[in-house]
């Protein structure tokens, strides 16, 4: 099998240039590529466009990139947990493109799957439909939505092997596996990196063909946004 391992987060993100279009996995703070975000903070780059369902919180996740003014534009479905985000947006320092979550997921999936455009009912009759082609199929109206692709997709998995095959855990899966094929280069950080043959071929969530670089991350904080417990 083809070996995709790189040394660490620093090596994995080293060639990401200013102005790059990035996809980053995660839902809320769950399943975000913590190590790559830290490594990006050490790079002297800016004007990034980031596709991510959320924008982190003020002092964690993508919020850290925002605070360092590295981001020009966010493409997300929900950004409501981040005060610095709000400030930059109101000041005109940041652009945001808000997309229904299912449309975002499907546009990303289409980008990786060679589907340039598709039709969805989400957003018909709303401001999301402005400027978009609508079309009726079997009596229901749909919007045409285009595929999304990125220069780099940066994702986080639970286990991976050196060939780039990935397994996720719990709801930390979310956008991670579908972003892998949508990036020209996919960087995957994993909690546990194993040799080829150690993962069951029948249990892999993301085939290694989509992953160009993989490394074992460290010191995962896995911050919890809303700790809710029952008695």
């Amino acid at each position: 099998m083809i070996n995709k391992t790189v040394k660490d987060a620093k090596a994995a993100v080293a060639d990401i240039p200013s102005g790059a279009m990035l996809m980053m996995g995660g839902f809320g703070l769950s399943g975000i590529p913590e190590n790559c975000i830290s490594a990006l903070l050490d790079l002297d780059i800016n004007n990034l466009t980031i596709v991510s369902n959320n924008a982190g919180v003020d002092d964690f996740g993508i919020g850290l990139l925002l605070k360092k003014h590295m981001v020009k534009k966010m493409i997300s479905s929900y950004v409501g947990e981040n005060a610095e985000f709000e400030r930059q947006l109101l000041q005109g320092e940041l652009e945001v493109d808000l997309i229904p979550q299912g449309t975002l997921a499907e546009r990303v999936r289409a980008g990786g799957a060679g589907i340039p455009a598709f039709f969805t009912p989400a957003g018909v009759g709303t401001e999301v439909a402005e400027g978009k082609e609508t079309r009726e199929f079997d009596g229901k109206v749909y919007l045409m939505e285009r595929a999304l692709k990125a220069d780099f997709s940066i994702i986080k998995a639970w286990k991976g092997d050196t060939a780039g095959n990935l397994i996720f855990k719990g709801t930390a899966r979310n956008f991670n596996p579908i972003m892998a094929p949508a990036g020209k280069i996919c960087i995957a950080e994993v909690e546990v990196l194993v040799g080829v043959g150690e993962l069951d071929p029948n249990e892999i969530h993301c085939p290694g063909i989509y992953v160009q670089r993989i490394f074992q991350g460290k010191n995962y904080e896995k911050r919890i946004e809303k700790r809710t417990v029952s008695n």
Partner: protein
Amino acid sequence: MLSKDQIAQRIAKEVKNGQYINLGIGIPTLVANYIPDDMEVVLQSENGLLGIGPFPKEEDVDPDLINAGKQTISMLKGSVLFDSAESFAMIRGGHVHLTILGAMEVSENGDIANWKIPGKMVKGMGGAMDLVASAENIIVAMQHCSKSGESKLLPKCTLPITGVHCVKKIVTDLAVLEVHPAGGFILKERAPGVSVEDIKSKTSGKLIINGEVPEMVF
């Protein structure tokens, strides 16, 4: 007037055995507490889980297991995990039978506004637009009037809408109403102690009253 919990309790009576259900944040989440134990339903969380269990015990909290409101949760026997594309394939494809969500406004033709207030910070629509465009049955849980006393049941939404012609039923602190296919809110039930006149005065959209309107039974 119903408490939030009572609104949830009344909505739980709309749930049918064998349904797959998506519950929005707020009052809808409380509905889960009132589904009878002998009823088999499965709750979907659009971040990638079928079979949402109760909040975990302190020692079982797992940052890799949250619901769409970012709260830590647990799984049940028979739960399934999946990615975001699969989750919305499920929603868009009509496999989730019932969506219960909150709203800022509902119009008499079933439009819903619940994601954006002009002039205020935009948080984003999350999965709401996909949900309201897709589910075969959509029930709104909300207060009948805003904090400033304005009716939230309108001839036409004044806020940017989330979806058109999609709301089937509304349960408020005052009443249960159905949206008439040709437009208008059909008053089905009154909250205990609330009069038809009271509801009429607090409903700015067209209210349709057919004969005697019964009080809710829980």
